[in-house]
C-alpha cells in the first residue's frame, strides 16, 4: 500500500480534495433547491395552493370545508395555522421535503448511471411544474419528494422491511403522484406474472390502510365516508379550476422543452425494447409510470390543472437523463472539424430566420411576403445543412449539440418563469396583495364605525384566504343595515344608502393565456409582461357619511 502510494505523483494541494463529479452533483443540488426559493418567498398564492390553504385555514379554525383534503401535508399546514397566519412555514416545509430529491436521484446512479442521474436531476431542477409544486403549499406539497424516494427504492430493488408500512402511510396521505407510481409499479410487477404478494406488499398495504384511516378522521372534522386523499385530489384536479389556463395550454407554454425530447427518448427506448426483446423490471416500471402519468395528462388536457404535467415530468426526466448522457457522449466522438463548420453555417442561417421570427412575435404579426420568403429561405438553408450533417455517419452525432442547446435554452426560459414569480399563467388565478389590503381596510372601518363586515355569498370562497383571521363575517345576499362595510360583486347594483369606497378592488386576478397562440407564445417567452391580467372586481361600500 505504501509503495503504491509513494508511486503516485504528489499533489501540490494538501487539503481535502473533491472530484469534479461531486462538485457537479453539489452544484446541481444547490441549484435545485435555490430555484425553489423564489416561489417560496414570492409566488402569489394561486390555483391549487389558494384552494388548499383556504381548506387548511378552515380546518384550523374548526370550519367544515370541502377544500380540506387531509393529506399529511395539508394536515401539517392546518397545524401551522395554529401559530401563524402566513403561508411561509408551509411553503418552507414543502421546500425542505423537495430539497431531498437530489439525494434520491443520487441514489439512482446504479440504475441510471452517474451521468444519466445527474442529467435527470438537472432536468428535474429546471422543470417549471416541479419548481412550483415543490415550493408552494398545495395539498400535494410532499408528492414529488415521496415519489422520488419511492422510485429510488423500487428501481434499486431495496427492501425497506418495516419501512414499507411508513411508505404505504405516506402514499395514502399524499397526493396523486406517489399513488400513480405505485400503480405503475404494480402494473409492471403484475405483467411480469408476479403470482404471490410479498411481505413488503403486505406491509405497504397495511401502511396504506393506516393512511386511509388517518385521512378518514379528517383532522377531527367529522366522519364523511372513506377518504383516500390521492383519489380525491385526482378528482379535484379534474373538477376544480387549479389554473385559469387549460392543461393543454399550460403544457404548450411550459412543458414542451421536456415533453418533446421525452417523447423522442420514449420512442428510442421502445425501439430498443423491440430489438432486444429484453425488458428489465426497472424499464417496465419506468414505462408503466410513463404510460400512467402520460395517460392522465392526455385525459386531463381539457381540465384546468398543472398537476398532471408535474406528474409526467418526473418519469420523463428519469427517462431522458441517461438518453441525454449517451447523446452527449456520442456527440463527443463526432467528426467536429467538418461538423463544426456546418453547424456554424446552420446557426447563422437559423439565427437570421429566428431574428425575423422574434421580431414578428414582438409585433404579434407575421411580416410581409418578402420577409416570409426570406425566413423560409434561411430556414430551408439551415434545414439543408442539418440534413447534410445527418446524412454523414461521422457527423451525425454532432446534431445532438444544437438540439440540446435549443432544448436547454427553452427549458431555462420556462424554468425562470416559474422560479422568478410574476404574473404567470402557471400561477393564476391568484389572490393579490390588494385582497389582504382590502381586508385590513375593512377591519379598520369596522373598528372605527362599529357594525359588521358583510360579504356577498358568491364571494364566500374567494374571501376565505385573504380574510383569514378577521373575526366574524356576515354573509348575506341582501344588504343588512348593521353592515359597516359591504363587499359586493361589481356587476350587482349597489346596496341602497351606501357609498362606494374608491379603488379598483379585486379578490382574485386571472392571467390570460396567449390568444394568438404561436406568435404570442413566442413573444411571452422573451417578454413575460405581455399577457393580459383580468381581476375579479368587487365593489366595496361603506355607510354614507351624514
Amino acid at each position, binding site marked *: 500500500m505504501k509503495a503504491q502510494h509513494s508511486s503516485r505523483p504528489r499533489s501540490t494541494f494538501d487539503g481535502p480534495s473533491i472530484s469534479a463529479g461531486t462538485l457537479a452533483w453539489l452544484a446541481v443540488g444547490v441549484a435545485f433547491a435555490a430555484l425553489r426559493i423564489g416561489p417560496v418567498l414570492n409566488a402569489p398564492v394561486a390555483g391549487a395552493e389558494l384552494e388548499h390553504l383556504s381548506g387548511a385555514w378552515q380546518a384550523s379554525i374548526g370550519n367544515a370545508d370541502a377544500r380540506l383534503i387531509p393529506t399529511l401535508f395539508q394536515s401539517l399546514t392546518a397545524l401551522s395555522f395554529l401559530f401563524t397566519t402566513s403561508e411561509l412555514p408551509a411553503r418552507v416545509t414543502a421546500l425542505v421535503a423537495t430539497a431531498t430529491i437530489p439525494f434520491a436521484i443520487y441514489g439512482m446512479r446504479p440504475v441510471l448511471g452517474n451521468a444519466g442521474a445527474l442529467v435527470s436531476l438537472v432536468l428535474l431542477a429546471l422543470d417549471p411544474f416541479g419548481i412550483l409544486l415543490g415550493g408552494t403549499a398545495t395539498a400535494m406539497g410532499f408528492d414529488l419528494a415521496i415519489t422520488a424516494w419511492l422510485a429510488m427504492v423500487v428501481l434499486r430493488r431495496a427492501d425497506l422491511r418495516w419501512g414499507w408500512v411508513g411508505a404505504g402511510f405516506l402514499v395514502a396521505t399524499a397526493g396523486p403522484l406517489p399513488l400513480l407510481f405505485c400503480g405503475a409499479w404494480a402494473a409492471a410487477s403484475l405483467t411480469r406474472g408476479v403470482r404471490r404478494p410479498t411481505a413488503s406488499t403486505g406491509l405497504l398495504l397495511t401502511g396504506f390502510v393506516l393512511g386511509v384511516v388517518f385521512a378518514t378522521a379528517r383532522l377531527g372534522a367529522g366522519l364523511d365516508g372513506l377518504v383516500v386523499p390521492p383519489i380525491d385530489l*385526482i378528482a379535484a384536479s379534474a373538477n376544480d379550476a387549479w389554473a385559469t389556463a387549460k392543461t393543454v395550454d399550460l403544457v404548450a407554454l411550459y412543458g414542451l422543452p421536456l415533453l418533446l425530447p421525452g417523447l423522442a427518448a420514449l420512442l428510442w427506448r421502445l425501439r430498443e425494447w423491440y430489438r432486444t426483446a429484453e425488458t428489465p423490471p426497472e424499464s417496465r416500471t419506468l414505462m408503466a409510470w410513463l404510460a400512467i402519468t402520460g395517460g392522465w395528462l392526455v385525459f386531463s388536457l381539457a381540465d384546468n390543472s398543472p398537476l398532471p404535467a408535474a406528474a409526467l415530468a418526473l418519469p420523463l426526466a428519469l427517462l431522458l437523463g441517461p438518453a441525454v448522457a449517451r447523446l452527449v457522449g456520442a456527440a463527443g466522438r463526432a467528426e467536429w472539424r467538418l461538423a463544426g463548420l456546418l453547424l456554424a453555417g446552420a446557426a447563422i442561417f437559423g439565427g437570421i430566420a429566428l431574428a425575423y421570427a422574434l421580431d414578428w412575435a414582438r409585433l404579434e404579426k407575421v411580416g410581409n411576403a418578402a420577409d416570409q420568403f426570406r425566413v423560409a429561405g434561411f430556414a430551408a438553408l439551415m434545414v439543408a445543412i442539418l440534413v447534410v450533417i445527418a446524412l454523414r455517419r461521422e457527423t451525425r452525432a454532432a446534431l445532438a449539440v444544437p438540439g440540446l442547446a435549443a432544448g436547454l435554452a427553452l427549458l431555462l426560459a420556462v424554468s425562470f418563469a416559474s422560479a422568478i414569480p410574476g404574473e404567470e399563467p402557471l400561477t393564476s388565478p391568484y389572490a393579490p396583495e390588494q385582497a389582504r389590503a382590502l381586508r385590513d381596510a375593512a377591519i379598520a372601518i369596522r373598528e372605527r364605525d362599529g357594525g359588521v363586515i358583510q360579504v356577498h355569498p358568491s364571494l364566500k370562497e374567494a374571501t*376565505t384566504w385573504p380574510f383569514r383571521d378577521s*373575526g*366574524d363575517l356576515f354573509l348575506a345576499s341582501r344588504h343588512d343595515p348593521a353592515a359597516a362595510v359591504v363587499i359586493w360583486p361589481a356587476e350587482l347594483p349597489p346596496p341602497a344608502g351606501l357609498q362606494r369606497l374608491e379603488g379598483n378592488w379585486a379578490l382574485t386576478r386571472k392571467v390570460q393565456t396567449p390568444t394568438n397562440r404561436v406568435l404570442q407564445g413566442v413573444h411571452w417567452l422573451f417578454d413575460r409582461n405581455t399577457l393580459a391580467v383580468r381581476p375579479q372586481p368587487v365593489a366595496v361600500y361603506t355607510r354614507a357619511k351624514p
Partner: protein
Amino acid sequence: MSVIAFWAVAMLVGGLALPIAFVLFRRMPDAGAGLAFPLGLVLVGYGYFILRVATVLPQGRGGYLVAIALLALVSCAVAGRDRRFASTFRRSVPALLTVSGLFGMLFFAFTAFRSFTPEIGGTEQPMDLMYLNATLQSPDYPPTDPWLAGEEASYYYFGYLQIGVLTAAANVPTSVGYNLGLAYTFAAAGTAIASLAYAMARRILGSRGQRWAVWAGGLAVALLLFTGSLAAIFEWGAAHGEANAAAYRAFDMDWRISCDLDEREYCYDGPAGDRTDAWYPTEFFWWFSLTRIVPGTISEFPLFSFILGDLHPHVMAIPLVLLAVGLAMAVWQGRSRLSLGSHRRPWFGLLLGLVFGALAFQNAWDVITFSGLLALAVLARNARTGGLRRALRDSALFLGPPALVGIAAYLPWYAGFSSQAEGIFPYIGAGSLPTHAFLHFGPVLVGTAVLFAWAFKATDRRALADFATISLWAPLVPFFVWLLVTTGRGELQDAIDGRGGGGWVTLAVFAAGAWAAATATLSLTAGRRAAAPVAAVAAAALLLLYGSELFYVGDVFDSVPRLNTVFKLSYQAWILLSLGGAVAIAVALEGAARRRAWSGWLAVPAVLVAAGGMLFALFAIPNRTDGFEGETAIDGLAYLARTDPGEYALTRWMSENVDPGDVIIEASGRTWRRGQDGRLAVTDAGSDYTDSGRISARTGLATPIGWYFHEVQWRGQSAANRAEFTRRQDLVDGIYLAEDVSAVAAKMREAGARYLVVGRAEQTRYPTETLERLDGVLDVAFESGNVRLYRLPEREVVTTS
C-alpha cells in the same frame, strides 16, 4: 373532437379488457375481441359503482378515470398470469384489426346518422337524459332520483352508468354523451354479434368455411341492426298510392290504406292518394306506428330503437346480453366438468356473477332469460361426462356461488330498487295475428326455419323420435300451466274465445317452432355437434315468443296487461334470432355452394325475406333524417339553443354553477288557469311526456317531482306513493301560485329547495302575476331573455379566526 374523444375512450376500455377476454374466450377465433367492449365497460362501470357506494371515489370525472385505471391494473394482472397471452395476442392481431375497424365503422356511421336528428326531446328521451345525468351528477351513491328529490333512484340504471363512464372520461357534455352513447351501443352490439356469429359458424364449418363464417358475421350484424318489420313494404306502397287492397287485407295491413268515404276506423284517415313527395314515405314518424301493430303491446326491434334514439335500458343492454350469450357459449365449449370444486380458482365464477348480475341491474328482464341460457350450457357440458342426475347436481353446485356473487355484488342497488312486477299471470285476451307475427318476426324467423332444414340431417331417426318426445314437454308444460291456471280462475272459456282464431294459429306456430328447435338442440347436443348452440339460441328465442303469448308479468299497465312482457321478451328473441338465423343461413348457403345440398337452397328465400326486412331501414332512415337534409349537430340540446336560447343558457349555467346537491323548483307539469269565478283550477294534470322536470333532466339537479306516472311505474302504485307524489306537486304548485309571496321562501325551504326556475314552461302553466312578484322575495341568480333563475336569500355568519 367530442366524437373522436368518445370513440377513443370506448376503444381504450375495450382494449384494456382484452387480456380478460382472451382468457374467457380463447376458443373463439377472435379470442373474444368482439366482446371486449361490453366486458370492459361492465367491469369499469361496476368498479365505479361499488367504489362510489363505498365513498372511496368522489363525485366527478376523476373517479371515472380511477375506475378505468383499476381495470388496467386487473388486466395487467390477468395478462401477467396468462402464459398464452402473447401467443393469443399475436394470433388475434387480424381479428383485433377487423373488430376495431367494424366498431369504428358502425360508430361513425351511426354518429353521422344521429347528427341529422340529435334532439333529446321527444318520447321518453328526457327521462333517459335524466338518468344519465343522475349517474354522473349525483352527490351520493347509489344515485338519487332527480325527479323525486331526496329519494334513491328506483330503476335499472346500470346502462346509464356505463354510458356515463364514457361520457365523463371523454369529457363531453351529457347531451353529447347521450347521442354518442347510442352510437357506442350500436357499434358494440354490431361487433359483439359479428364475433359470436363468426365463431359459431367457424366451429360448425371448420377452417374451410371461413369465407361463409365471415358472411355469418356480416348477416348477423345486418339482421340485428339493419332489419325491421316487413310492414314497411306495405307502408311504402300505401304512401305511393299503390295499395292493393286485397293484399293489404290478407296481411291485416288495411289500416294503412286511405279510408273510404263512410269508413273511419282501422284505416288511414289522412288525405287519399299519394302521401309522399319523395321515393320513401315522408309521413311524420310512420315507422313508429308499425311497432304498434300487435294490439295491446309494443313490438320493437333494435333497428327501430336506434332510429328512434331513446337511450333505454333494453337498448343499452344489447351488447351485455350478447356478452352473456358469449359466456354461455364459452362455458358450453369447455371440456372439464364444472362443479363446486371448479371455484378453487374463483376468478371465473366471480366474473360470471358480475356479468350475469349486471343483467338485472341493466335491464331486469334479461337476467332470467340469459341466466337460464347459461344454466343450460353448464348442464349440457356436464351431461357430456356423466349421467343427467349428476350433471344436474354439479351444475347447481357450480352455478350457486356465481348466483350469490351476482346478487351480493349489486346489493346496494337491490336495496333501493322496488320492482313494479306484481306476479306472473295467464294472458286472457286477443292473441297476436299470424300475419302480424310474420310481418314483424319474419325477417329473423326465417333463418330458424333454415336451421331445421339441416340440423336433423345427421341424426338417427329413432333417436330423433326420442328427442322429439322429450322436447315436446318444452311447449306443453307452459301450455298446461296456462290451462290449469285459467281453469282455476274460472276464465278458461274467456281465454279460449278471447284469443281468437288468429291468436291460436300464432300460438301453435310458435309452439311447433319451439318444439322443433328444442329437438334440434337435444339431438345436436347429444351428438356433440358444434351447431348445438345455434339451435339452443333459436329454441330460447321461440320459447320467449311462445311464452309471451301465454303469460304476462303484471305491472301498473292494467289496461294493456301484456304490453311490457311481449315488448321486452320479443326484443330478446329478436337478438337471439338474429344470431341463430344468421349462422343457420350461412351454414345452409355453404352447403349449397359446396355440396349442392338441397337444404342450402332453402336459404335463398330466407335471405329474400330478410332483405325485405332491411327495406325498413331503407325507408325509415331517410324519413327520420328528412332525407339527410338540414343542419347537423351531435349535441342533443343544440335545438334548444336555437328555439329557446335563454333556457339553453340557463341549462349550461346551472350545470356549471349550481352545486349537485341543491334542489330546484320547476313546473310540476300541471297547468293552472283562473276560472270565471276567479279561482285557480287545474286545466291539465298530465305531467308525463311534457316539459315537467326538464331542467332537472338536463342538469341532473333534483326537483321535488318530475313525471308523475313514471314515478308510479318505478315505485309502485300504492296509495302512499300516489299521495306523496301529489303532495309534492301541490307543494311546487303552491310556490308558483302563492297569493302571499312572502310565503314562497318558507315553502321552498319546506321542499328543501334553493333555486326556483321561471322559464317558458312556468310562464305558460301558471298565472304570471305571482311570477312577477318573486323579485321582491328571492335573489336573481341568473337571467337570460325571458328566463330567470331565483335563489333563496342567504344569511349566515361565518367565523374566520
